[in-house]
């Protein structure tokens, strides 16, 4: 009888420890808000700067130049993922640039997402909207920045190829890149959400993020090519879900390098696992977090 009664009602608010929810349907209902938040993030980022949106390009260009000088010329890190092929010649600059753009997106998104609950608490304790809206919006606004930067990258790549400075064999595979970007987004969201949940109770997690990301950067082939990793360690090395993303991205853009189905599938599996775990944990915490924060 009691159960029947409950069904007459459309919504039911119960204590937090209910069954796990993904909340994607509610997120879809609030897609307008996701869009507005992402737009607000994106447009207000470069306000009150002299160079404005130019920073979007300057940032990766400057970092890439530094990378090329420090890691490429001074440290002489290899910029190849596979055995050197005769026909291909990818300048170190472009090699660093693509890795840099992707890693920048990844680390920024992890950092932004991990702060969503603490940064938005003022509004979240006043009004309810699906809490997932904020992290997803930050991921999307970073995605927009990345898209613009990738455009610059492809312009340079095409320009280099036309001048004959770069010889790459770009195939239809390059159209798989969006799939890779989606994976990168899911991975950064999952990681960021898990950290954000930890930050609610223990602010220590917030301080750990930067250190953690720096460590992760060194374990990922961004400032060096996969070639630098000794052969017997490569299996262990590729357990890092971000590593195959970087090598595959370069493989898709340059048509050469390292590409194996095994690590890619493994990386996808880890990504999905982290993403689902992140969302479930986040939704569970979100219900009562204004009491704790």
């Amino acid at each position: 009888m009691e159960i029947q009664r409950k069904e007459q009602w459309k919504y039911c608010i119960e204590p937090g420890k209910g069954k796990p929810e993904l909340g994607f349907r509610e997120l879809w209902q609030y897609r307008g808000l996701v869009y507005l938040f992402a737009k607000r993030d994106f447009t207000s980022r470069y306000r009150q700067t002299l160079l404005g949106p130019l920073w979007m390009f300057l940032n990766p260009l400057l970092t890439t130049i530094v990378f090329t000088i420090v890691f490429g010329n001074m440290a002489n890190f290899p910029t190849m993922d596979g055995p050197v092929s005769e026909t291909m010649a990818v300048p170190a600059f472009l090699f660093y640039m693509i890795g840099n753009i992707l890693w920048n997106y990844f680390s920024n998104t992890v950092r932004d997402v991990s702060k969503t609950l603490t940064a938005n608490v003022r509004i979240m304790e006043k009004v309810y909207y699906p809490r997932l809206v904020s992290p997803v919006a930050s991921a999307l606004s970073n995605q927009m920045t990345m898209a613009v930067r990738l455009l610059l990258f492809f312009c340079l790549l095409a320009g280099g190829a036309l001048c004959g400075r770069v010889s790459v064999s770009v195939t239809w595979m390059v159209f798989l890149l969006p799939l890779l970007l989606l994976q990168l987004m899911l991975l950064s969201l999952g990681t960021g959400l898990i950290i954000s949940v930890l930050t609610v109770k223990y602010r220590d997690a917030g301080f750990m993020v930067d250190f953690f990301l720096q460590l992760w950067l060194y374990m990922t082939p961004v400032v060096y090519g996969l070639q630098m990793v000794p052969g017997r360690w490569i299996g262990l090395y590729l357990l890092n879900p971000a590593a195959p993303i970087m090598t595959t991205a370069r493989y898709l853009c340059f048509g050469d390098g390292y590409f194996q189905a095994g690590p890619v599938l493994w990386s996808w599996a880890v990504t999905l696992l982290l993403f689902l775990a992140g969302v479930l944990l986040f939704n569970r915490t979100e219900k009562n977090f204004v009491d704790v924060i």
Partner: protein
Amino acid sequence: MGTPMIRVEHVSKEYRLGVIGQQMRRRNEKETLTALSDISFEAGTGETLGIIGPNGAGKSTLLKLITKITRPSAGRILLNGRVASMIEVGTGFHPELTGRENIYLNGAVLGMSMREIDRKLEEIIDFSECRKFIDTPVKRYSSGMYLKLGFSVAAYLDAEVVIMDEVLAVGDAAFQNKCIQKIREISESGKTVLFVSHNMNTVRNLCSRCLVLDQGRLTYDGEVELAIQRYLSLDLSSDPAQDLDHQRRVFHKTGEMAHMTYIDLFGRRVFEMGEALRFRLRYRALRDLEQPCLRAGVWAADGTAAAIGFVPLTGARKGENEVQICMDISRLLPGKYRLELVLTESDDSGRMVKQDALRNAAAFEVALPKDRPLYRAYNRDWGYVELPMSVE
């Protein structure tokens, strides 16, 4: 009551106290604060339900639970429609964005779809009276305009259950009237409105039913007038002689060198207009008091202060004291009042210290005088005191 829209079933909410991190070490120690305990009520379409109670009674917590900002510790809330909250208008406004952009942002935060906002945009702008500034960043708005715009967005939400917390303190008198009119429209259009306010007249004007919360418990659910009386402790049915020793003290910064223990209105609760109020007061002093004074505030049923009286208390010695006081309330208009008593002490430098303060020392009623000329008609909206007039 129409079809049920919201049902709150045995809802409780507890907060854990203490600092996080320290809790780990003393986990078995249970320090919790019960903000709400075992609240149950139901409301249907077309009902405007007032929720009143002193600060800290749990009103805001209740609204936070209904709007899903935080979850109950026990019990459940069943809803038959969307909930729109106007807990604090203008939440989520971004100072850099224009009024128009903020309407979209705020509307989306409150759960409206883009299409819905497109459709209502013009109406919202009109209602807000901010059309001239709608393309200006809201950081240049006056605080009044800011609130007006916030209220307007919330007022056009298409939800079946609307929750409002003190939103009527918005804008000037004209805009406030407009808001009240709008809320009445909302409830007449068949929505369920939950309305939290400290303004008893607004509650009286708007609500069809009223809940009283006190220290996390639902102490009354029913007729508005009775609920207000209950909240203001104007319950005239209780004994006119009262033990004050254990009554809750709500004031801060009292010296606590004196403690009022007992009041007796000599068996009366109702006084005819023109009569004087006499009462006997006992208080305990922890030492001899210097220049002690009793301040008696008369508060009317709508929660406003109506009048004030002072009397010096001579010979307040250490220990138990008893005084008999006469207060001339002959000019108070008919109605229900409560007496607030504050015992002060002052020194020669003019500094005054509250030693004890009681918000609800006693309640009394002033009745219409039996024989009065017909021109002396009284209306609750005309004030609290009649001033004597004569022709010269």
